[in-house]
C-alpha cells in the first residue's frame, strides 16, 4: 500500500515539476494540477493509510485513532482541493488574459 502510493506520489510530482519548467502556459497549468494531486496525497498520507476505517463515528460515541482514520489531514486536504481548484481557475484566466495581451502562449509573454 504505502510503497505503491509513495511511488505514485513521486511520479505525479516528477511529471508535474517537469511540466512546470516547460515554456507553454498550458503545460504549466497541467503541471500545477499534477503537482497538487501529489501534494494532496502526500499530506493525506501523513495521517497513515487505513482501509475501511473512515473517520465517521457512532452517534453518541467517541472515536479514536485505533478504530478510525486520522481526520486531521483529511480536513486539511479537503481545504487544499478547493483552494487548488481556485488556483487553477485563476491561473487559467491569467493565462488567457496574457495570451490575449501578448498574442502567444509563452509563460513570459514572448518567445
Amino acid at each position, binding site marked *: 500500500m504505502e510503497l505503491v502510493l509513495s511511488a505514485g506520489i513521486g511520479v505525479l510530482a516528477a511529471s508535474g515539476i517537469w511540466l512546470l519548467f516547460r515554456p507553454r502556459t498550458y503545460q504549466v497549468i497541467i503541471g500545477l494540477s499534477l503537482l497538487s494531486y501529489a501534494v494532496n496525497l502526500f499530506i493525506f498520507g501523513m495521517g497513515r493509510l487505513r482501509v475501511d476505517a473512515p473517520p465517521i463515528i457512532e452517534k453518541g460515541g467517541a472515536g479514536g485513532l485505533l478504530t478510525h482514520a486520522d481526520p486531521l489531514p483529511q480536513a486539511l486536504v479537503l481545504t487544499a482541493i478547493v483552494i487548488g481548484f481556485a488556483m487553477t481557475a485563476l491561473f487559467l*484566466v491569467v493565462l488567457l488574459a496574457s495570451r490575449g495581451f501578448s498574442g502567444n502562449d509563452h509563460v513570459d509573454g514572448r518567445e
Partner: protein
Amino acid sequence: MAEPPAWTCHPRGTTIDIAALLLPVLVFAPLAGSIAAICLPSRQGTEAAWLSGLVAFLCLGISVYLYLHVSHRGVIAWQVAWIPQYGLNLKLRMDGFSWMFSGLISAIGLLVVVYARYYMSSSDPVPRFFSLFLAFMSAMLGLVLSGNLILMAIFWEMTSIVSFLLIGYWYQNGQARDGARMALTVTATGGLCLLVGLMLIGHIVGSYDLDAVLSSGDAIRNHPLYLLALILILAGALTKSAQFPFHFWLPHAMAAPTPVSAYLHSATLVKAGIFLLTRFWPVMAGTDAWFWLVGLAGLTTLLLGAYFAIFQHDLKGLLAYSTISHLGLITVLLSLGSPVAAVAAIFHTLNHATFKASLFMAAGIIDHETGTRDMRRLSGLFRYMPHTATLAMVASASMAGVPLLNGFLSKEMFFAEAIETHKVNLLDTVTPYVATLASLFSVTYSIRFIHSVFFGPPPRDLPKVPHEPVRWMRVPVEFLVLACLIVGIVPSLTIGPLLHTAVEAVLKDDTPSYSLAMWHGWNLPLFMSIAALIGGVILYALMKSYLANSVEGPPYIRRLEGQRIFERVLVALSWRWARLVEAKAGTRRLQPQLRILAAASLFAAAIPLLHRGFQPADIVLRGIDPAFAFVWLIGMACAVGAAWQAKFHRLAALVLLGGAGLITCITFVWLSAPDLAVTQLLVEIVTTVLILLGLRWLPKRIEGATKPEEMTFGVRLRRLRDLLVAVACGLGLSLISYTVMTRQMPGTISSYFLERAYFEGGGTNVVNVTLVDFRGFDTFGEIAVLCIVALTVFALLLRFRPASDSLEKPMQQQVQNDFDDRHPDRSKGDSISDYLFVPTVIMRWMFPAIGMLSAYLFFRGHDLPGGGFAAGIAMSIGFILQYMAGGTRWVEERLRIHPLRWMSIGLLVSTATGLGSWALGYPFLTSTSRYLHLPLVGDVPLASAILFDLGVFSLVLGATVLILIALAHQSVRAPRAHIRAPRPSGTEAS
C-alpha cells in the same frame, strides 16, 4: 532613588487622581484636534487656527496645572495595559523633566499658532498645516511623556513622519520635497536604530518600563551589550538632533514654512535627541565610551555649526546652522558626565528654545514683509520696522551670549564646565579652546544677522516695500524676548524653581548645588566670554566685505557638503547598486525562477535530512494489494502521459490529467477518506469543464509552418537538467512519504477531534465537524479566498480581449454553419441543436436530480460524507449542464439569482453565524447542535454549524458558477471584439 511611582490607574483609595487622568488628555487632545482640523474645508484657515490655538491653550493650561502635582509628588503616571505579554503598556508618566518639555512644547506651540495664523497665506491649504501641527504636538508630547520604551519609540517615529510632512508642506516646491525626504531618511534610519537600542535596554533591564530602566543604571553600564545599545541609541539621538555627521538634513529642512522651523527645527523636534540623551543620562553617562562618542560628536558639531553659520546668506540657513551649533553645545555638556554640566544642558535647552524660536519668527517676519531672506539684498530695515528690529536684536544678543540675557547664563555655565577637568585626555583638554572659538563664531554670526539686515543703506529693489507686520504677528516674538530678558536678569526668581524641578527629576540624589546668578565675580568663564565677544566683533569687521559678496557656504570646504554625499549614497544604493544586483542576479523570466525554486526546495529538504542522518525505511514488497498497484500503474501512466502530451495534444493531456485525478479519487475511497473522494470527484469535473472552456482561446498548432524543434545540444542539455531536477524532486517526495507512512504514528492532536466531534460538534462525520466547527475560522478564511478568486477571475475576464488568431469560430462550428447556410430550410445553429438533441433533454432533466443530490449531500454532511463544499460544487455542475444544454443566453434569461448574490449571501450568512455566537457571549463561530425531526426527511443534524455550512454552500456555488460563466461568456463576447476585426460574423449559440 526614585519615589515609588503613584499608580493612579488602579487607585486603592476612593479618590480619582485627576492629575493622572489629564496626561492622556494632554497627549490625545492635540491628536483629536488634528483629525478635526483636517476635516475642515481648505479655505477655513482661521477656524483651524482658532481650533489649534484652543487646543494648545488647553495643553498649556494642563501643563501649568500639573506643575503643582509634579513639584509636589515627583512622578505622576497613568497606564492601561496594551499588550502586557510583551511588556508593552500604554503608560504615560510625567516627572519634572518631562514636565519642563511639555510646558515648552505647549507654550511655544501656542505662540507659534498665533504667529502662523498671520504668517500663512490664505492661498495655502491652511487647515492641513494646522492639522499636521497638532499631530506633531501630540507626537512630541507623547514622546516626552511616554513611560514605556517601546511607546517612546513609536512616538519618536511619529515625530519623524509628521516632521517629514511639515517640511514637505509646500510639496509643489522641489526643494521642500528633497528636504523632507532627506530629513525622513536620516531621522527614520536613526529611529530604527533607536528602536533596536531601546529593545536592547529592555532586554538588559528585563522590562520596558521607564521607571524600571531609570533605576538600573549600574546593570546597564556593566552589561556586555552596553556599547551596542549606546551606539544604537546615540544613532537615534544624534540624527534627530542634527549632530555631526548627521547634521546636514537640518538646513535643508528650512524649506518648511517658517512657523514649522521655529517650532520643530529649533524649539522642539531637534530637542528630542537632547531629551533622549538627558533622559538616559543617569543610566548611561559617565563611561569612557559615552564621553568620547557624545563628546566628539558634540564638540565637532558645536564648532562646525558655528563656523558654517557665518557663511550663510539665507537668514534661516544661518539660524539653522546656529541651531546645530547650539545643540552641539548641549551635547558636549551632556557628554561630560558631571551633574552640574547636566544642569547647564537642561538650562540651555530652555534658553535656546526661547531665543531661537523668537529669531526664527523674526526671520519669518522679515521674509514675509520684504519677500526675501537673502542677507546680501537686505539692509537698513531698522527704519522700516524698528520694533521688529529691536526684538531681533535682543534675541540675537542672547544667542551671542551677551550679559543680562538668558543665553549668557547657560553659556557661562558651559564655560565653567569646559575648563573643569573631567577625564584626563585630549578631548577634555581642547574643550575650553573649542568652546571659546565656537562662542566667538556665534558672536560673529549674530552680529552679521543684525547688522546686515537692519543697518546700512536702505534696501534697493526688494520684492515688497518693507513695513512692520500686523500687531499679532509680533506678539509671540515679544513674549519670547521678554522671557529672555527676565530670565537673564533675575534667573533665580523666575526660571529657578522650574529648572530645579526638572533637574531633580533627572539627577535625583546627585542634584548638585548650583547658582543661577548673573554675576559670579571676575572669573575665567567671564574672561572667556569677553574674549569671545571682542574676538567676534573683530572677526565680523574683518569679514564684512567678503561676506557681502561671497558665494554661499564656507570657503575651501564648500563642496564638501553633507547633502551631496547623502545624494550620492542614495543614488548608489537605491539606483546603481540595486540595478546592478538586479541585472546580475535577477531575472524576469518565469522558467529560471521556477527552476531555482524547485532546486532550492530540493536542497532545503535534502540538507537537514542528510545532516541529521535520515534513514529511509526498508522497502517491503509483501502485502501489496495487486488491485491497488494496478490502479496506480494506470495513474502513473496517466501522469507521465499528460506530461508527455501537454505541448501539442492539449485535449489528450487534459483527459490524462482527469485520469490521474480519478485515480487520486479512487485512492481516497480505498483509504477511508470518503469526504475527500466526493470532493475530489466533483472538483475534477468542474476543473475539466473549466479547462475545456479555456482550450478554445489557446493558439493552434500550425502544421508544417514550424519545423519540429531543432534538438540542439543546448536544448537537450536543458531538458536533461529539468528532467533530473524533476525526477530528484519526485524521488525525494516518494522516499519521504514512504518513510513517514511506514513509521509508527506519533501522538498528534487528531484524537482530540475524534473524541469530541460528537459531544462538542454534534456530528459524526469528523472531517466535516472539523471544517465547520473546530477549524471553522480556517474554513471561513478559505471561502473568503474562493470569493476573492472568483471576483478576480470575473474582473480579469471583463477586460479580456482574445488574441486575434483565436477570434475565428472553431472549425467544427464553421462546418456546421456552412451546412446550415447551404440548406434554405435550416437556420444557423440547427445542426448543433439537432446533434445535441437527446443530450440536451437529458441535461435539462438532470437539473432537479442534481439539485436533489446536492441537498442530500448538504444535509447529511454533518454526519456522513458530504457537506457544504461538496453540495455547492455538485449544484454548480447542475448549472453548468444547463449552460451546455441551452446556451448562455437561454440560461441567463431564466436564472433568478445572479452568482454574485449567491456569493455575497454565502459570505454574509457565514459571517452572521460567526457573529451570532458573539451575541450569545461565545467566541467567534462557536456552534451549538441538536437534531431536528423533519417530516419525511427524518432526523436532520441541526447544528448552528449547518447555517455556517449553508454559507459555505452558497458561496462555493456562486463562486464556481461565476468562474465558469465568466469563461463561457467569452465566446458570446468575442464577436463584439470581432466587429473591429475585418471578418464580420454572426452570433453564437454557446
